[in-house]
């Protein structure tokens, strides 16, 4: 019997997800033993044409990381969707746009203008802008088209499962891999479509060791502005922690290190818009009934949109800033 086939792809991604896969340590050997890895551009040399040549549904499992922000990302997403039995959005970028999704606060033009013309690290005079098609002596060179709006994977193709996290925690990956091997080798039924794997139904607070009390907030600060009590909920100390509105699964690592949760595991099951929900919750516990004071306290939230939507902007209700 042939081995099940595994594809791992990175779209608009930093590569952290691929490294996280390697971080499962010796279990990677189980993966190698069990699967026939047929596509993993980050790790090995594969050609898109090889994939194109495969029959549809010939790849058992595709772990797709990275958001969709270019024509190439979109094309490969479609390709892998067609060739895969199970397509899994792997990591925050694929699941909800992730850090690349923050580009949705700006237009493509503004970004290119800055990156290729205004960035202080550019050599003066070099104002070349990438062009989708360039006629070179060798012929017509085409490069992928950069999109104006960053998309999550599920916005462009049908996704079977989601493994959240930036990156997904290695122990969670190991568990998922073990489960998949178990299902495939023992012929067990797959979980329902759309299931979030490698995470729980609770929020980050569930894994947070800090003691929590009722909350009344008189003002917000950044972590470095104050020596925080290591045993008390950061939110109670005025630090915007996305933990309450973030799915659990990471083991609350950031919070135990004194850094507020940034929300990479995404919205919990029943929450439609992680940022709006966090805003609602946070505003509720502000300790004032005076409109002016409320404004003052809200003013003290550092970069509210960037904070509430750090990972989920591309997947949020409004998707992007209207420009």
């Amino acid at each position: 019997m042939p081995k099940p086939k595994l594809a791992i792809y990175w779209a608009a991604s930093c590569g952290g997800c691929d490294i996280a896969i390697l971080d499962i340590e010796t279990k990677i050997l189980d993966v190698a033993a069990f699967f026939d890895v047929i596509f993993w551009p980050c790790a090995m040399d594969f050609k898109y044409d090889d994939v194109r040549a495969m029959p549809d549904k010939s790849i058992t499992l595709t772990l797709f990381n990275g958001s969709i922000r270019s024509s190439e990302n979109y094309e490969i997403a479609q390709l892998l969707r067609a060739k895969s039995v199970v397509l899994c959005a792997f990591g925050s970028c694929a699941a909800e746009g992730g850090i690349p999704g923050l580009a949705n606060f700006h237009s493509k033009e503004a970004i290119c203008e800055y990156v290729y013309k205004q960035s202080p690290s550019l050599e003066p005079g070099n104002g070349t802008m990438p062009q989708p098609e360039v006629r070179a002596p060798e012929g017509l060179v085409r490069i992928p088209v950069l999109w104006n709006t960053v998309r999550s994977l599920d916005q462009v193709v049908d996704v079977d499962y989601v493994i959240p996290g930036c990156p997904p925690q290695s122990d969670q990956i190991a568990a998922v891999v073990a489960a998949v091997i178990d299902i495939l080798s023992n012929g067990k039924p797959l979980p329902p479509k759309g299931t979030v794997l490698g995470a729980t139904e609770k929020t980050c607070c569930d894994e947070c060791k800090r003691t929590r009390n009722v909350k009344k907030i008189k003002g917000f600060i950044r972590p470095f502005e104050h020596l925080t009590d290591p045993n008390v909920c950061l939110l109670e100390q005025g630090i915007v922690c996305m933990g309450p509105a973030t799915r659990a699964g990471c083991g609350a690592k950031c919070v135990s290190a004194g850094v507020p949760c940034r929300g990479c595991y995404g919205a919990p099951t029943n929450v439609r818009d992680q940022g709006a929900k966090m805003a609602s919750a946070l505003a509720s516990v502000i300790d004032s009934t005076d409109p002016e004071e409320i404004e003052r306290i809200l003013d003290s939230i550092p970069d509210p949109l960037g904070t509430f939507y750090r990972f989920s902007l591309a997947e949020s209700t409004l998707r992007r800033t209207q420009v």
Partner: protein
Amino acid sequence: MSFEPKIIGFLCNWCSYTGADLAGTARMKYPANLMSIRVMCSGRVDPGFVLDAFRRGADGVLVCGCHPGDCHYVDGNHKCMRRMPLTRRIMKGMGIDPARLRLEWVSASEGARFREIVSEFTEQLRRMGPLELKEIEFDPALEGAHHA
């Protein structure tokens, strides 16, 4: 034909909704642009509702609650009073004019006031024009997708 803005109104059960009811039973006329959603308290209004309304095509959102201190639920409206400014900030960040969201206190006896608020808000939105949100739903044609 002039532009008729679509307004979603979240009205609290005890004051504003009753106020609207009063305006109705008193045969007061106000623009039909407002589509009311009854909530028990303005404190029930989630910023998500507001954003969703805009996404789905509302040109304005009106949130009405009891006057501060008169809340049927003691201080539910205070929570609303704190959430809406933050919602406006999100709107601003998302490129939507915060003026499209209004928070008003209307008591059960203020039918006339309710009528005035709705008329005035409708007129204001009419002046502002329709809210057109772009690139919410994915459309590969718009993105210039092409195969390498």
